[in-house]
């Protein structure tokens, strides 16, 4: 009887079919959404991009210093670093302040390009390489522009990725 009723009621049949199709689509969509949101590779990719962004910013900070706003600049340096590098900056701060105040230089840096060379997401360690153009303006003479190849080590802290080591890529002894 019920079957007769339903078959004799096309709109109802259509409604049932549509609801079933919608339920199927919702199930599929939900699975797809879940699958997309719980992708390990995506989390790793996000960590990589976070590390690169933080690394580039930190490298730029470390190559930017205005003698007129020295304390502010050095605070930024300390904020961009952690571990040994941070300690070195804190320890050497006074001497460095004297040095820069005497030289009266203004350094600005532009990131040309950067890449993450290694990333240990779990341990919270990463390596970055950054191509940089630094312009140093002294009170006298033309601004000096130099291109700089920086290699940095990053450590993840509670405040995000920070530089734990930074240096120029060595040159000369590897070629030939």
């Amino acid at each position, binding site marked *: *009887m*019920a079957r007769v*009723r339903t078959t004799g009621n096309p*709109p*109802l049949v259509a*409604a*049932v079919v*549509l*609801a079933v199709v*919608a*339920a199927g*689509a*919702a199930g*599929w*969509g*939900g699975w*797809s*959404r879940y*699958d*997309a*949101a719980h*992708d390990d*590779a*995506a989390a*790793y*990719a*996000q960590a*990589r*991009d976070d590390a690169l962004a933080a690394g580039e910013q930190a490298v730029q900070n470390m190559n930017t210093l205005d003698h007129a706003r020295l304390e502010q600049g050095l605070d930024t340096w300390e904020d961009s670093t952690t571990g040994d590098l941070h300690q070195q900056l804190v320890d050497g701060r006074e001497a460095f302040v004297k040095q820069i105040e005497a030289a009266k230089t203004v350094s600005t840096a532009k990131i*040309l*390009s*950067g*890449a*993450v*060379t*290694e*990333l240990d997401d779990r341990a919270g360690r990463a390596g*970055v*390489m950054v*191509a940089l*153009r630094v312009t140093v303006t002294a009170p006298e003479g033309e601004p000096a522009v130099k*291109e700089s*190849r920086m*290699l940095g080590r990053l450590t993840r802290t509670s405040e995000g990725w920070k530089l734990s080591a930074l240096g120029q*890529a*060595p*040159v*000369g002894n*590897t*070629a*030939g």
Partner: protein
Amino acid sequence: MSTTRHLVNRRRRLAVVAATAAPPRGTAGPGPATASDPEAAEPRTPSEAEAAAETGTKAKTETEAGAGAAAREDAGAEGDDAGDADSDADDAPSAALRSRRPRPHVRLPAVLCAATVLLGAFAAWAFTSAASLRDDPTRQNTALTDISRTSEVKGQITEAVGAVFSYTYASPEKSEKAARTYLTGKAVQQHQDMLAEVRAQAPKQKLVLTTTVTESGVELLDGDRARLLVFADQSNTRTGKDEETTYAAAMFAVDAVRRGDTWRIAAIDTFTR
């Protein structure tokens, strides 16, 4: 008979009131009997309902109740459809009955429609959300996340850079061959321009240019396209009368494309202003 009937009906009426005062079923209000009222439904038969209808206006409420109950009985007997009581209930001129008759018809499609809309909306949101998650540039870039591809492109581009930016005056064809093997598109002309001076000077000064990649990192890896940042050392040796070697630090980015199994350099960005 009439008196007995009347008493019986009265009892039913009271039962109906009690039943509707209890947790209501649907929106019926203090109207006819509901299916949850077993006392009203139990003793009724369609013929009794008709008989009740004949007792006149005084018994009208009871009739409605009876007809409703009869309808319910029918429904119970024939499946879950109160609408089948139509033939029996036709005799009862009841507005209440007419108003409740379409309810089961309306309710099922309404629920289905609501479910369809809600499920459909969820599905649309889920697919859109999943697609936007997957289209995120961060995910599209598989540098480092795709370990084998990352090391493949790093290895091949390191080799390619070393080959095309090395030049020996004694065998210039070696560099030509490397250029044909590793370069494609815009990079071919860029390489020509970059090495033009070396080529011109090489025979006279007996130049040997050697390029070694010291660091490379994959900035972007998306299918068959990649961009790498390269730090390289270049040693330039003049093997003329007095041998002299100069070192230079180079940094540049290369765009790479994968053709078949090999990565080729498609463009070289030396960050010139």
